[in-house]
C-alpha cells in the first residue's frame, strides 16, 4: 500500500506550511492541537461539530478535494469525548429530564467518518476502528486489505483523538499522566511515572499506485502483551519476515513517552538495532494519545530530514529509506510498522 497525500493537525506546525524544525513548547501536560482556520466546512455545520469531528474533517478536506475516494477508514479510540461527557453531564444535571440529542449523536465515535461521508457524498466503505491504542493500526491494516481486495481503489485513511477535560481527568486518576507539570521539551529527561496528554488528526490518501508515492507501507503487526521480552522477540521476527536479506532499518521511530514504566519496552526494541540505525522519537511533539502512532507515520513521510529534537541516537545510515515505527500504548498494546520511503528525503 502506498501513501500519496498526508495531512496532520497536531500541537506542532504540521498543517499547511508544515515546519517541524522549531518545537512548540507547552508546560501544562496537555499538548493541544493548533487548529487551523477551517476552510471548506460550511459555518453552520462547523459550529455544531465537536473538536474531534472538526479536526478530522479539517485534516481530510485537502485530501478529499484532490481525489475522490472509494471509502473512509478511521481509527479513533474515543471519537467525540467532549460531546459524550457533555451529554452525560446533561443526564445527571437534568436527572434524565428533557435532553437535546445533538451531543449524543455527535458523541458516537463513528460521527467522524460519517460526517466525512456526508460532506463528500461518499457512499463507499465507511468504518471506524476503536480498539484503543491500536485503533489506528487496525484502520491501517483494514486499508491494506481493502487495497489488496480492490486494486485501483483509493481510500481515505486517518486517525483522530481529542483531549477533553473529562478524559484527561479519568486518565489522570488512572495514573497515565505525570503529577508534576513538565515542559514537553523535557519529556524524555523526567524519570517519573506518567506522560503528557496529546491530541490530533492525521489523514492519508492510500492506494496501490507506486508512481509518485511518498511512501510504501510494507507491513504492520500488532501485539497484546505486558512482557518486554515478547515484544523484542516479535519485533525481531517481524523484521526477519519483512526485510530482504542484508537489509537494515535506517531509522527506528519510537513512541517513547517519558513514562518510566514503559521505558523497558522501548529499550528492549532499541537493543535489536546497531550503529547503522538512527533512533528517533515523536511524543514530545504530539503528546500521548491512543492514535498517536498516526503522527509517527505522518512524520516518517515528511519530505525533509527529521529535525534534531527528534533524534535520540544518530546512526550511520547514509539515507533514510527503511523506517520501523514501534509504539506501545500503556505497555499493553504494541505495534510495528515497516515503511519504505519512496520519495527523496
Amino acid at each position: 500500500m502506498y501513501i500519496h497525500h498526508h495531512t496532520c493537525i497536531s500541537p506542532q506546525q504540521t498543517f499547511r506550511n508544515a515546519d517541524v524544525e522549531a518545537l512548540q513548547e507547552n508546560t501544562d501536560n496537555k499538548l493541544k492541537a493548533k487548529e487551523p482556520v477551517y476552510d471548506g466546512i460550511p459555518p453552520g455545520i462547523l459550529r455544531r461539530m465537536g473538536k474531534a469531528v472538526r479536526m478530522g474533517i479539517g485534516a481530510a478536506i485537502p485530501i478529499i478535494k484532490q481525489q475522490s475516494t472509494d471509502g473512509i477508514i478511521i481509527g479513533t479510540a474515543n471519537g467525540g469525548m467532549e460531546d459524550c461527557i457533555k451529554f452525560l453531564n446533561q443526564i445527571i444535571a437534568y436527572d434524565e429530564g428533557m435532553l437535546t440529542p445533538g451531543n449524543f449523536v455527535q458523541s458516537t465515535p463513528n460521527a467522524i467518518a460519517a460526517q466525512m461521508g456526508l460532506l463528500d457524498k461518499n457512499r463507499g466503505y465507511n468504518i471506524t476502528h476503536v480498539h484503543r491504542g491500536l485503533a489506528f493500526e487496525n484502520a491501517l491494516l483494514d486499508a491494506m486489505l481493502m487495497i489488496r481486495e480492490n486494486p485501483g481503489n483509493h481510500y481515505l485513511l486517518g486517525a483522530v483523538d481529542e483531549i477533553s477535560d473529562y478524559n484527561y481527568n479519568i486518565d489522570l486518576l488512572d495514573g497515565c499522566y505525570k503529577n508534576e507539570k513538565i515542559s514537553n521539551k523535557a519529556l524524555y529527561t523526567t524519570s517519573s511515572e506518567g506522560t503528557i496528554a496529546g491530541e490530533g488528526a492525521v489523514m492519508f490518501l492510500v492506494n496501490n499506485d507506486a508512481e509518485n508515492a511518498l511512501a510504501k507501507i510494507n507491513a504492520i503487526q500488532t501485539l497484546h502483551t505486558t512482557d518486554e521480552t515478547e515484544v523484542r522477540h516479535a519485533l525481531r521476527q517481524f523484521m526477519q519476515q519483512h526485510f530482504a536479506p542484508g537489509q537494515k532499518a535506517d531509522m527506528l521511530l519510537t513512541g517513547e513517552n517519558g513514562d518510566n514504566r514503559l521505558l523497558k519496552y522501548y529499550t528492549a526494541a532499541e537493543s535489536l538495532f546497531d550503529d547503522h540505525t538512527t533512533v528517533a522519537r515523536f511524543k514530545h511533539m504530539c503528546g500521548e494519545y491512543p492514535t498517536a502512532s498516526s503522527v509517527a507515520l505522518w512524520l516518517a513521510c515528511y519530505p525533509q530530514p527529521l529535525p534534531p529534537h527528534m533524534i535520540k541516537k544518530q546512526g550511520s545510515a547514509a539515507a533514510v529509506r527503511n523506517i520501523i515505527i514501534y509504539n506501545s500504548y500503556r505497555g499493553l498494546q504494541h505495534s510495528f510498522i515497516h515503511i519504505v520511503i519512496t520519495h527523496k528525503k
Partner: protein
Amino acid sequence: MSRIFVTGMGMISAIGDAVQKNREALIRKQSGISTLTLFNTKYTGLRPCGEIKKGTQELKDMLHAHEKGTTRSSALALHAFKEAADDAGLSAQQLSSPHTALIGGSTVGGMCLTDELYHDANRSENGSEYLSSYDCASVNLYLQKRYRMGGIINTINTACSSSSNAIMYGARLLKNGLAKCVIAGGTDSLAKFTINGFNALHILSPEKCAPFDRDRKGLNLGEAAAFLVLEKEEDIAGKKTYAELTGYGNSNDAFHPSSLSDEGDGPFLCMQKALEKAGLSAPAISFINAHGTATENNDAVESRAMLRLFGTPPPFASTKANTGHTLGAAGAVEAVFSVLSLYYQEIYPGLHFSNAIAATGLKPETHYRQMSLQHVMSNSFGFGGNCTSLIFSKV
C-alpha cells in the same frame, strides 16, 4: 479465496442465555421486552426494554469474572464468547494462538456505568475501579487478557451496524490469511447514556415495538452479546458447520447523522454489494432478517430499499420485537438467528404486526414455519448512515 464457515455460536439476550434457548423463544414467539427491573433509570415503567434478567453480580459469579473493573458489557461478552468457543471446540491453546483473532463491535462498551463515568470524569481523587473500562475496546481487551489471545484483536464501532462490520472484518482477515480462526461478534448492555440519547431523539416506543407495522411507535432498546466462530474450509475437516458466510457489503447512506435517506441508498447499496460478493442475484435470497427497528424512518426506508432491489422482496421479518434493539450487538445476534434459520430450515416470525405501511404494502412473516432456505440475508443499519448486509448460505 477460501470459503468461510460458521463453526460455533454463542449468545445471551433478553430471550435466553444460550443459542438454543433463543431459538426456542423465537419459535414460541416470545418477546423479551418488559418493564425494567434491574437497570435503574427514570424511564423504568415508561420505556420497556429487552433487559437480561440477570444482575451484573450474578453474571460475574456465574462466570467467575471477578477481575477488577469488569463491566456488565464485558460479562455479557464473556458469557457469549465462552459458549461460542466451546461450541466450536476451541481449546485454550487454540484461543491463545497467534492465528486466532477476536473482532468485536460495541457502541456502549463500559459506558453502561454512566454514573460511575460521570463521577470519575468530574472528581479529583478516589477514582473507581472502572477507570480503564469505559471505552468500547475494554470489552475485547478483557477477553484478550482472560484467554491470553495472541492473534489480531480489534474493536469496531459503527453504531448499530458495529457487529455486522466485525463479522465482515473477521471474514476478510481469514480470506487474506491473517487468521485461521476468527471469533467475531459484539456486545452492548443497557445504559442511561443510550436510553436518554434515543429518548431525546424521540424514537423510543412506550409500548412493545411493532416492526413494519403502519402504527409503529419506535424502538425498544435491548442488551445482548453474541459471537460466531468463523473458520476456513481447509481448516475444518470433520467439524460441525452451521452455515457458510458467502456475502457481505457496507455502504454509507451519506444523508443525515441520525436518519436514513428516503430512497434508502445506503441500505440498497449494502444489500447489492453483499449479493455481488456472494455471486448471487436478488431472487436467490430465500429470507431476510431485516434491521426492522420499528422506528418510523427505518422501517419505511428499509421497505423501499427492499422493493428497489428485489421488486418483490422474499419473506422477511425482524427479531427486534423479541430481543429489543441491542445496538452494537444486533448484527451478531441476528447473524446467529439467520444461521439458525438456515441450519434448521425454519423462519422466525415478527411480532406485533397488524397493518402494512400504506406506501409500501410490505408484510413481514408473522408465523413460525419450516421452509426450504438456501441463502439468508441479514441487515444492520446504524447512525451516521452506516449500512451493512451479510449473506449466509446453507451447507
